[in-house]
């Protein structure tokens, strides 16, 4: 049975009837919902149980939790300075959520939550809105200086619209980067898996040739694990950089 490579990205209700409605939209409990719940449950359990010992000399799991904590704390500190640390819980949650979703997506027959543009765009929209709110809360109307670079006045006519466009382009770049990376990797895996099945089913010498795409799958799996970690990191650090602009405008050099 040949599987369509895109079938893995379909969001299908697991419970046939909608749970309830919000603003006229039906809310289903879907395969994606299930994996989000699993991811969040695993992440919550991991980070609470790993730290439950509160040991001075950490166990392996406690050490992993602490390393990720310090990794994110250092990332925020270097990208957004001391006052960026107020946003630690949010950025840490974002990093952990994206990382766990990406890594869980590597498990065969699982669902990759971050391969949905709706998810990544919703997260990005929230982040950009938060940046704007923080910017206006901290600098008032002075936050608008973010869009006014130091340049002669006649150039500003050109530069200000460019700055504004580039600011809002982040909505697309941040969300599509994560979504496209996850989607492309998993599509590639499915395509090569399809080759294995097709060659295996063909019989004879072609069955032996199916080793080729099988090895490719292993290689891409390793690459995708790297991408899973990397994209979570990129997503988190870009959030820090955008927050830094809201907190310090252009003066943080």
């Amino acid at each position, binding site marked *: 049975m040949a599987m369509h490579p895109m079938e893995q990205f379909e*969001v*299908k209700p697991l419970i046939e009837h909608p749970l309830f409605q919000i603003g006229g939209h039906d809310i289903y409990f*879907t395969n994606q919902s299930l994996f989000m719940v699993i991811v969040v449950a695993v992440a919550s359990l991991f980070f609470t149980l790993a730290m439950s010992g509160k040991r001075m000399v950490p166990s392996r799991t406690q050490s992993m939790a*602490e390393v990720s904590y310090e990794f994110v704390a250092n990332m925020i500190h270097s990208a957004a300075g001391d006052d960026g640390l107020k946003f630690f819980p949010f950025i840490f*949650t974002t990093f*952990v959520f994206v990382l766990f979703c990406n890594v869980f997506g590597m498990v065969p027959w699982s669902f990759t939550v971050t391969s949905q543009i709706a*998810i990544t765009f919703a*997260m990005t929209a929230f982040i950009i809105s938060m940046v704007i709110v923080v910017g206006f809360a901290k600098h008032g109307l002075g936050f608008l200086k973010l869009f006014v670079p130091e340049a002669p006045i006649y150039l500003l006519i050109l530069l200000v619209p460019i700055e504004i466009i580039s600011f809002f382009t982040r909505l697309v770049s941040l969300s599509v980067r994560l979504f496209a990376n996850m989607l492309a990797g998993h599509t590639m895996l499915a395509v090569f898996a399809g080759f294995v099945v097709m060659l295996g089913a063909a019989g004879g010498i072609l069955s032996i040739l199916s080793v080729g795409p099988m090895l490719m799958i292993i290689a891409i799996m390793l690459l995708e694990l790297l991408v899973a970690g990397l994209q979570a990191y990129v997503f988190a650090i870009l959030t820090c950089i955008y927050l830094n602009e809201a907190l310090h405008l252009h003066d943080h050099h």
Partner: protein
Amino acid sequence: MIDAGSMNATTEQPASHEGSGGFPPFDTSTFPSQIFWLVVTFAFLFVVMWRVAGPRMNGVITTRRNKINGDIAEAQKHRGDAEAASAAYQTALAGARARANAHAEETRKRIGSEIDKARADADAKAHEATVAAEARIQAMRTEARTSMTAAAQDAAIEIVNRLTGETVSASDAAAAVKAASGS
């Protein structure tokens, strides 16, 4: 609107099961469910990180950092103490050595002066004895000379008496002896 949404969602499912439903991530009928569950799960994770896991990790890391810094400070203090003790020991040692040297020097001087004094005493005593002995010798010599003169006198008187039969007076004999001895 409500009916259209639910109709869309319910009629879409059999189509997508056959694997022909276009590009699944752009299927807008699933968006409300996706965003709803994203908000619920993300908010849950956020609260767990913010209220439970984060403070725990922060607490452990801060405690450990304080403990390590405290231990290092304490170790520094102990090292300072050890260095101070070592310096005090060296000072005490130097002082003791100086005292011992001074004591030895003093003793040496005292013994030296005692030896000098004893030597001087002995010298003085020897000198005294020498002087006394010389005096005695002188006295004995004088006495011997006197007795020799007297003996010579007697002998002269006796010789003259034997030879001439004359008796010479003691004073003449003495004068003659004196003249003969040339002194």
